[in-house]
């Protein structure tokens, strides 16, 4: 949280708006360069895959060629199969994530604001967090069956843990000096929360949202592997059972891409909401 301290010493002074255009151009060029670098490894991986399958290093039943997988992918996109399964998965993640993130935000706020709540809750919560999300499935399956409720709960749990811990840590890290300003200005508790504590904790809360989303997405695929008749996880299991490895690989790629896009989306949303940081050293 170094950005909150040493404000007095950050004597940049340059507010000139004429400079921003140049900076933006430079940032874009730098961004393009970094995106290109990020593509190197995936491209190499595909090349290696192509090499491995064309040289027959692995039987074709186990490792289908990239071209074959590509054809399958196109077929599945055209038939709407991908959209259907991805849509089912996304719907579950949205519900589960919202549910878990809301609960995590509330619990994290309670823990961050009150030492007493934290003392009561943290030990159990940490122990709870140590149990992998998938480890909950057998028990939850017995209680909730294998319907949608199970999936939503497992996904929500994935979001709950990082959301809670990051929210609590973010609130803790708001400098006491800032809260004192609120006292001097006679802020009510609600005003202090709204105007000082939550904005001060926003960065950390966003980290929680992003981790929460990633965990939710991972948990989703896990729970769909075990108990589902649609969704991307189901596609994986079904493909394996039928020995359609091309379908398995397509499903894996879609899972990766959707997760990546969601994470990037939140990244953009955060840098928009925290745009006051732009240009800050």
């Amino acid at each position, binding site marked *: 949280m170094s*950005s*909150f301290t040493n*404000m*007095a*010493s*950050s*004597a*940049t*002074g*340059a*507010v000139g708006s004429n400079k921003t255009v140049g900076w933006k151009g430079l940032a874009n060029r730098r961004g393009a360069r970094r995106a290109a670098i990020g593509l190197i490894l995936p491209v190499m991986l595909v090349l290696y895959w192509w090499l491995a399958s064309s040289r027959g290093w692995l039987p074709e039943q186990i490792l289908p060629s990239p071209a074959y997988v590509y054809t399958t992918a196109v077929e599945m996109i055209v038939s709407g199969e991908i959209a259907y399964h991805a849509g089912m998965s996304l719907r579950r993640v949205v519900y589960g994530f919202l549910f878990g993130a809301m609960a995590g935000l509330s619990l994290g706020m309670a823990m*961050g*604001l*009150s*030492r*007493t709540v*934290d003392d009561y809750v943290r030990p159990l919560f940490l122990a709870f967090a140590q149990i992998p999300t998938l480890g909950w499935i057998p028990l939850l399956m017995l209680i909730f069956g294998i319907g949608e409720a199970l999936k939503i709960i497992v996904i929500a749990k994935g979001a709950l843990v990082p959301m809670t811990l990051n929210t609590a840590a973010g*609130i*803790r890290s*708001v400098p*006491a*000096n*800032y*809260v*004192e*300003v*609120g*006292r*001097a*200005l*006679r*802020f*009510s*508790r609600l*005003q*202090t*929360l709204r*105007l*000082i*504590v939550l*904005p*001060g904790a*926003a960065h950390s809360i966003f980290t929680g949202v992003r981790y929460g989303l990633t965990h939710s997405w991972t948990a989703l695929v896990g729970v769909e592997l075990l108990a589902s008749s649609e969704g991307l996880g189901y596609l994986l299991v079904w493909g394996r059972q039928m020995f359609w490895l091309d379908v398995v690989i397509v499903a894996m790629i879609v899972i990766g891409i959707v997760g990546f896009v969601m994470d990037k989306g939140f990244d953009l949303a955060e840098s928009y909401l*925290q745009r*006051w*940081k732009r*240009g*800050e*050293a």
Partner: protein
Amino acid sequence: MTSPAHLKIRNVTRRFNVNGTALTALDDVSLDIKAGEFVTIVGASGCGKSTLLRLGAGLDVEHDGVIEHGGRRVDGPSLDRGIVFQEPRLFPWLTVERNVSLGLENAAFSKAEKRELVSEQIALVGLSGFEKAYPHQLSGGMAQRAGIARGLVNRPDVLFLDEPFGALDAITKARLQGELQQIWAAEKITMVLVTHDVDEAVYLGDRVVIMSPRPGRIRQIVPVDLPHPRERTSPELAAIRNGVLDILNGTTGEAPKPVTRPSAARRPAASANPIHAAHRTKPARPAFSTTEI
């Protein structure tokens, strides 16, 4: 705003508990401040000057003795008492305009009046054109101007300033001192400024309160009977400053010795200031987080 700003500090003692031992930060301090007066408090570190300021502002109420403002006991912060901290403590996620307007968050003005007051105040501290800038885009001096604007925007009776220029370079500091003096003259607000800079204290103060450390006491109060705005280089001011310096040197119990270079081994290590440490230590019962509200 309603009653004449009259700050009465009577027999005030403040003790801190540092690792089980009681430390007296202020010992039986009495001071009256007239409405519209500019009082500066100067002293070596550890003399309790910042403690006194926090008590006067109502940020700290755990003391013996009486502190009254306008005939009413000071039992917490009030919008009639503004405060400016050494670090400007602007919120980095808000623009200058929004930061200043926080001072009016709980004031009984209409939205339009608030907007008016904020822009007036920003103009007064010379930040016009920077309303939409974020704190990280400001220099140290500009940030402190915004801090002063936030303290003044509600038109308090008294403005407390805790070493407001301590972190600034000499040139910015001199300029801001001059501007603060103008604001004081224009707005007729009582000002209490804590500093360790003797030049600043005599340049700004109608009276200079000199404090001595361990325990914090008022050593002497020196009136500066020169009209504002003052000439920094005037011989009268220099004479007063030298007098204050003499008294201050007396408070630390060390007569200035001829300067010799002690060997590195014998050079005394800088000692930590126990009162500042006391401010930093949490209360004896750490049942709450620092951000608990």
